[in-house]
């Protein structure tokens, strides 16, 4: 692959990829000198081997003098072979045995030798003012062939054409056989590119920009996903280790008390009961992780049966009353009429428990209202808390997995999966889930469930 760009030395042209083959239309010796001297100086700077084939109106000795003004050690460069300035007659003598049909191969071979000698590539220029003595047609074919031949090689070629000597036909041939043309009009350098090349370049530039933007976006997404996963692992290990620590401390205390013979039967029973409770906590956490893994692979098992949502809400509130009391949250329930449907009872309970757990975690000490109603043939369960509310920018991600609005250091317990699992269950019932919240004014979660059986996919 030859991908890197090289400096053309000509400001109007700028950077060029290796393999470029372009032409210059000149009016005067000055036009030639102003393009070719900086062109070859840049070649020398870039450690390319430089071959400058000259012709009237800028002959080798004149080119050498111009070059010397910029690079005093030109003789050393020529002696070392990095720079070759040669008149076309001498060049013709050197290469006269070659036919234009095979001349492009000579350039490829010279490039290979230049690379062997440790140069970065080959930079060449030829003046075609001698062409009146040649066969134009075969030369134009040779030029066209060069464009293909240079591709993929570390060669840059600039062909100089005298505007005064070109007729309109040959101008068209020249422009067509080069990637682009350089000319100076009214003292300004201009690049002439074919419109298809211009369009292709512009499309490429746009594609590149889009690609870069996509790479930036994708990288940011991946980094965010990675960060969330790391946070989750840290939170999950903290959550699992906490009851494990209590369990282990109770066992240690029993072992030590047993060894000292200081443990009463009452103490033994009390500590074992507490150890058992910690086992229960661990089991719940592990089940939670299992639910997470099932929901992730879309395998939340649902067993629909006829369920009264009002009844589920009453039973859940009762069973959850200890947690509510501990958190200082008073729950008021409005679920007067039975609202029946075909749902999985345990999963519906889980939805309410997770939303309530969220409320007591973020709004301890504040009342909670649960209502179960019917609307447009759907069952609607809403849970309103009086906590700090959810900032608008977080409302979109609150149901994503691993999301916890407090930073990990201020961790309030849990995996950050509760509301995500709620969403997964509601999705499985083909229901909908929305929230209304304002900072400082609490949050209302509303679950809407169709009362018909879930269609299996």
């Amino acid at each position, binding site marked *: 692959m030859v991908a890197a760009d090289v400096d053309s030395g000509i400001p109007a042209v700028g950077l060029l990829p290796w393999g470029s083959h372009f032409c210059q239309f000149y009016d005067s010796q000055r036009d030639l000198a102003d393009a070719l001297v900086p062109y070859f100086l840049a070649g020398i700077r870039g450690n390319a081997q430089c071959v400058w084939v000259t012709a009237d109106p800028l002959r080798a000795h004149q080119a050498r003098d111009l070059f010397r003004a910029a690079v005093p050690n030109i003789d050393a460069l020529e002696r070392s072979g990095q720079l070759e300035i040669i008149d076309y007659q001498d060049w013709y003598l050197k290469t006269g045995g070659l036919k234009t049909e095979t001349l492009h191969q000579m350039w490829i071979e010279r490039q290979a030798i230049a690379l062997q000698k440790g140069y970065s590539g080959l930079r060449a220029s030829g003046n075609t003012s001698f062409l009146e003595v040649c066969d134009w047609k075969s030369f134009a074919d040779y030029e066209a062939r060069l464009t293909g031949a240079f591709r993929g090689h570390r060669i840059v070629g600039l062909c100089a054409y005298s505007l005064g000597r070109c007729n309109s036909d040959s101008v068209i041939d020249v422009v067509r056989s080069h990637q682009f043309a350089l000319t100076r009009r009214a003292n300004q350098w201009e690049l002439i590119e074919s419109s298809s090349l211009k369009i292709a370049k512009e499309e490429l530039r746009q594609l590149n920009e889009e690609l870069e933007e996509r790479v930036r976006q994708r990288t940011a997404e991946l980094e965010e996903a990675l960060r969330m996963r790391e946070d989750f692992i840290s939170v999950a290990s903290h959550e699992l280790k906490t009851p494990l620590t209590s369990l*282990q*401390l109770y066992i240690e205390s029993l072992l*030590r008390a047993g060894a000292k013979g200081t443990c009463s039967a009452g103490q033994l029973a009390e500590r074992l009961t*507490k150890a058992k409770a*910690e086992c229960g906590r661990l089991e719940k956490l592990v089940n939670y992780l299992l639910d997470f893994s099932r929901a992730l692979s879309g395998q939340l098992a649902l067993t629909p049966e006829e369920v009264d949502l009002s009844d589920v809400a009453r039973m859940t509130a009762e069973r959850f009353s200890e947690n509510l009391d501990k958190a200082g949250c008073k729950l008021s329930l409005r679920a007067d009429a039975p609202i029946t449907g075909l749902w999985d009872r345990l999963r519906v309970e889980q939805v309410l428990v997770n939303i309530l757990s969220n409320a007591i975690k973020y709004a301890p000490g504040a009342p909670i209202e649960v209502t179960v109603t019917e609307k447009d043939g759907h069952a609607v369960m809403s849970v309103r808390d009086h906590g700090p509310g959810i900032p608008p920018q977080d409302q979109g991600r609150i149901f994503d997995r691993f999301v916890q609005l407090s930073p990990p250091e201020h961790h309030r317990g849990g995996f950050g999966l509760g509301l995500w699992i709620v969403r997964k269950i509601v999705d499985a019932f083909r229901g909908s889930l929305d929230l209304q919240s304002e900072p400082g004014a609490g949050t209302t979660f509303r679950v809407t469930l169709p009362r018909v059986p879930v269609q299996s996919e």
Partner: protein
Amino acid sequence: MIDDQQNAMSEADGCRLGTILVVDDDPGVLEALETLLVDEGYHVVTACHGRAALSYLAEHEAPCVILLDMMMPIMDGYGFLAEQRQHPAFSRIPVVVLTAGANSNRVRALCPTGFLSKPVDVDALLAFLEEYC
């Protein structure tokens, strides 16, 4: 939450050794640590976050050792250590960090007297306490 009742009870039990302040947001862990340490003859007081621990320190005689959890709501272990440092009387109290998941390099950079991961190596914990109480 400072357990003054426990304070009174422990004194009535006639504990042999010094006072330990345990700071942890998990009631299960607090209770289990307290059970173990009281068995070992220590007097235990508890706080459920850094802010509560600072209030305790402001109003009571300094404990021999503080056992500190890192991940807590309201004021975490990092916040507590930073404030404790600022206070000439509190900064002398040895702190043993007990953590289940905090970044150990970040904790060690704060140079606590001791650092133990949860679940806790009880022998190592008791060795620390014996040294400072």
